[in-house]
């Protein structure tokens, strides 16, 4: 199903993310290259939304803008009712800390602290007591079935276990938006589906939105909604991938 997302009007008050007229330019030498073109999109809570596209389609740029880590050249982004790019820098940073959980493709765990401390980073960054933060992190790791690995350093864990630690870090502070970058890129099909099942179990809830950036067609059937990005424009918005992809 092809829809014209630009036709969407005002923000749905229940939308987790409401992005309007988003454009982003990058400077390459003397030239300015526009990688996103006037994108309008709403992300609803309670759903696992996939942002799909080829390399260079602009999905990383769009997700970065939607979660408040990259300023758009034009347009506004409202996350849970807050115009995030109207916030001062410090408030925007705090907003991310309070409301967004990140799962990075390469996990980016701190190698010299154990799994529980890694998972506790957002709580520690908020200023919570380190020991209490660690207790909460261990509880989250137990929920993800790796509670027994809490005291191990990242290099003592398998890739799958490291990813669970990264998931725990993204969820430990109970954010309302979870952003996940290529979670299955380095996994075989079975492991990839297991991770997605796990994410659906722990990351998706009534009041939480979950956006997955991926180009892994093995997991498209697990999405509640798929947004396809091509050349900086949303060309598809539906529950399934279009037939021609």
């Amino acid at each position, binding site marked *: 199903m092809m829809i014209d997302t630009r036709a969407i009007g005002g923000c749905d008050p229940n939308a987790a993310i409401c992005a309007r007229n988003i454009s982003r330019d990058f400077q390459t030498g003397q030239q300015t290259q526009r990688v996103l073109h006037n994108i309008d999109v709403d992300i609803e809570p309670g759903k696992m939304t996939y942002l799909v596209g080829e390399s260079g389609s602009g999905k990383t740029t769009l997700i970065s803008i939607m979660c408040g880590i990259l300023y758009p050249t034009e347009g506004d982004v409202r996350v849970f009712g807050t115009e995030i790019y109207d916030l001062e820098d410090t408030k925007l940073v705090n907003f991310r800390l309070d409301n967004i959980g990140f799962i990075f*493709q390469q996990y980016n765990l*701190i190698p010299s602290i154990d799994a529980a401390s890694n998972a506790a980073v*957002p709580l520690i960054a908020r200023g919570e007591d*380190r020991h209490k933060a660690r207790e909460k992190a261990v509880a989250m790791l137990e929920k993800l079935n790796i509670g027994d690995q809490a005291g191990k350093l990242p290099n003592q864990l398998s890739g799958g276990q490291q990813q669970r630690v990264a998931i725990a870090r993204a969820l430990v502070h109970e954010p309302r938006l979870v952003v996940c*970058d290529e979670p299955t890129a380095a996994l075989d099909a079975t492991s990839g589906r297991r991770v997605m099942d796990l994410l659906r179990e722990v990351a998706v809830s009534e009041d939480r939105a979950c956006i997955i*950036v991926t180009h892994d067609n093995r997991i498209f059937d697990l999405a509640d909604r798929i947004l396809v990005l091509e050349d900086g424009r949303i060309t598809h918005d539906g529950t399934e991938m279009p037939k021609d992809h």
Partner: protein
Amino acid sequence: MLWIAIRMLTGDKTKFYGLLFGIAFSTLLITQQLTIFVNLIERGASGVYNEPNAQVWVMDPVSRTTDVNYALPATALDQVRAVPGVEWAVPHLRSVASVRTREGELEQVAIIGVDDTTLIGLPKSLFKGSRSVLSEPDAVIIDDGGTINMFGAGFDPVDERLELNDQRAVILGMADTIPAFTSTAVLYTKYSRALNFVPGTRNRMSFVLVGITEGETPEAVAQRIEAQTGLKAETREEFARAGVNFIIQNTGIPINFGITVILGFVVGVAIVGLTFSLFIRDNIKQFGALKAIGVSNAKIRRMVVAQASLVGFIGYALGVLGTVWFMWSFSGNPFFKGFYIPWQIPLISMVAVVIILAITGWLSLRSVLKTEPAAVFR
């Protein structure tokens, strides 16, 4: 977050030890070299410090230090004694002589002639013998450093006979002194005997040593002596400083030590800068992730400052301890006799360490602060 910063730093043991080594080595080099420099140039004042009684030194206007002096006429002594505020004034001779040891070796020695009756001019304490031994015929007292230089460590020089400028001299005591800037042996003897040991020009009195009456200040008395006699008079502190300044102005020591100290600083910047940059570069993804998660630049700055402070504190402590160990382990060496670490030097090293860490930390921090959080998605 500071705990995480410290764990990030100490977790990478190779770089952590590299940073510690850089700071410790820099601190050691700066502290140790400055300590040796200060102690060495202070030896330019050892001639003054070894004489405990004189509050004012009177000399010919062209004299500059205890060793660089021009002889006074004998009448100068009475002129000085006539100045109000002078409690006592005694003659003091400083010269050089050649000595032939029992083994037949030739040495250059310094001869110091002290007042015949009061023995003012002698060092405060003696390792061997007593001040009264100078009443014995041909008696001289040798300094401890000179004993080692002339006879070797552990040698008892008492009763040792010398041929001093073709005259007989007998060592009957050994003085505890601050070594001179040069390693020349020093022989103390009575003034009248020194005149015989060092024959020469009509005027041979090098200095008049002065004690002041109660209620006077050395500065006031020195000024009065200069005004009344036309001679140069300096207080103990002024004359000691003149000896130090003479070495600073007339030797390459400050430049040589200065170069080493600068090298210590540069080596510190290089080692710490490179290692710190490598550490930051290796952790740039983690820092980027922290920024994306919601750790502010201010917190990142504090994290880097905490890392630099830890490295600085431990490295500096190791460097200073290294210097203390060096000084302690060489304290038995006569060259290092009386060496101490002035409190200002560790302070200077600390400032150098802070500057090294500020420069390297700032350079490393720039790359962290420049990192866009969005980079973690790339």
